[in-house]
């Protein structure tokens, strides 16, 4: 499975996918001390994002998210990459500042093609996301 992304920044990385149906804010949804989604009712509540390749349809949240990525990277609990359907400037500014790979725009939509637990590779230079192997 290969998915083309529109915009991308960062190093090529590979890791375990976490695929969300819900948008993401590192401020509203994430416990910035454990790296786990803790917002009550979030579809990924209880899921750790540490070292994961995170697929989110949208970005949520305000300006404070810009420092949050650097904070979680400093604490060594950051994801390896964010793959967004639609994002906003703060997410991009934050990810670039923290040195976390980030992409926006996908074709086709990863729904049904990539599942949580699959091992995926994000290649910003090639503007490509691909599944290397399926969840065991």
């Amino acid at each position, binding site marked *: 499975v290969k998915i083309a992304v529109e915009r991308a920044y960062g190093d090529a990385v590979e890791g375990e996918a976490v695929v969300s149906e819900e948008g993401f804010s590192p401020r509203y949804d994430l416990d910035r001390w454990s790296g786990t989604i803790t917002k009550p009712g979030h579809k990924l509540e209880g899921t750790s994002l540490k070292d994961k390749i995170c697929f989110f349809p*949208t970005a949520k949240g305000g300006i*404070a998210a810009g420092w949050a990525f650097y904070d979680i990277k400093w604490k060594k609990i950051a994801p390896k990459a964010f793959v967004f359907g639609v994002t906003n400037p*703060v997410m991009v*500014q934050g990810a670039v500042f923290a040195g976390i790979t980030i992409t926006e725009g996908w074709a086709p939509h990863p729904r049904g093609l990539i599942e949580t637990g699959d091992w995926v590779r994000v290649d910003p230079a090639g503007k490509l996301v691909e599944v290397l192997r399926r969840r065991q």
Partner: protein
Amino acid sequence: VELQPEERAILGGERGEAARRALEYQVKVGEFWGAKRFVPVTNAHMMGDIEVMGDGGLQWLKDTAALGARCAVGTTTNARCFDFAHCEELGQDAGEAAKERELIACLRRMDVVTTDTCINYQTVYQPHLGEHVAWGDTGTVIYANSVFGARSNFESGPAALAAAITGRTPEYGFHLDAHRRGSFTVELQATLDDLADWGALGKLVGEPHQSYFSVPVFHGYRRSPAADELKHLGAALASYGSMGMFHFVGVTPEAPSLDAALGGRSPAERIVITDADIERAYAGYRLGDGDARLVVFSGPQQSLFEMKQLAALFDGRKVKAGSRCFATTNGAVLAQARALGYAGTLEAAGVTLLEGVCFYILQNLSPMRVANGWTNLVSNSAKIVNIIGAHRFNTILRRTRDCVDIACTGVLK
């Protein structure tokens, strides 16, 4: 990104290592968004406090200051997480407070004017039509773009500081005409007489249209809205909809008419908002266990006129024993509110006035909630009831007068 000679000189280190690093970072962000060039900015407004930055951010800031970083344009700070006068009473962490003081000193060394306000647009700096600025938080950006006709993207702390140091920002998003045209229309049949009504309007319009590049065009309103009303509308649109701009026909400078606001496009959708819609928004809040012991006027900070109104509503009344009521504002407004007697009236009523902070980013807020046994948070700010959920409050939006009644009676309606 096409660089001008001055920008190439910065990348060559002519303005020092801090400026070189800042521009290098901005080039990467600009490339992501397909920016073709940089635009000079006249003003920057940045979020930077220990709660949002953490130890890593503080270390980075110290390193950057040590490299000799200096702001090239007027730069102010957003609301922060400590009012040092109330730190102990609120049970905040003394160690974190010490870091916050260190952080503030660091910013001042870099020539940042630590105003600690999210209402810079009401009290500090009002950019003109077409002026490029680099602002955050989101409420400041949407006000700048919409009400002043200035041009800014949401600039997070590191991005706003980079713009402050280099004096420029990559030209993408709301710096470009193409993104400033209205995308859908909202006819206002609703009365909208309380600030909370304007926030509820922002929620109703923002929530179903979550997109940074979605620009609503309001029209048909019966009177000219006041600055505080537009402030609550903008803050809610930005919060619920992640929006950075709106038009208001006959009110905002790029909307002399509906057609002009839409820039020749036909609207993707036409919405009508009535009083019944606003009432439905209020009715949608769950009252949880009925706890009515926490009422907050914050997010955005209170303007002088909001302080005046609160003082009139609290005059001669008392916050109910066992309840807490907080109002946050900036140092300038608080000084005037003291001189004018509003602060005295509010404090006599038992309202805690916090300076230079926003309630939602207070350091130690979650433990504070637990220690006080608060479950509900009542506010007239649609923004704060939206964003404070991660601290596990059940939040309830109510009109200003109702919030005051709830604070004084302890009865939630």
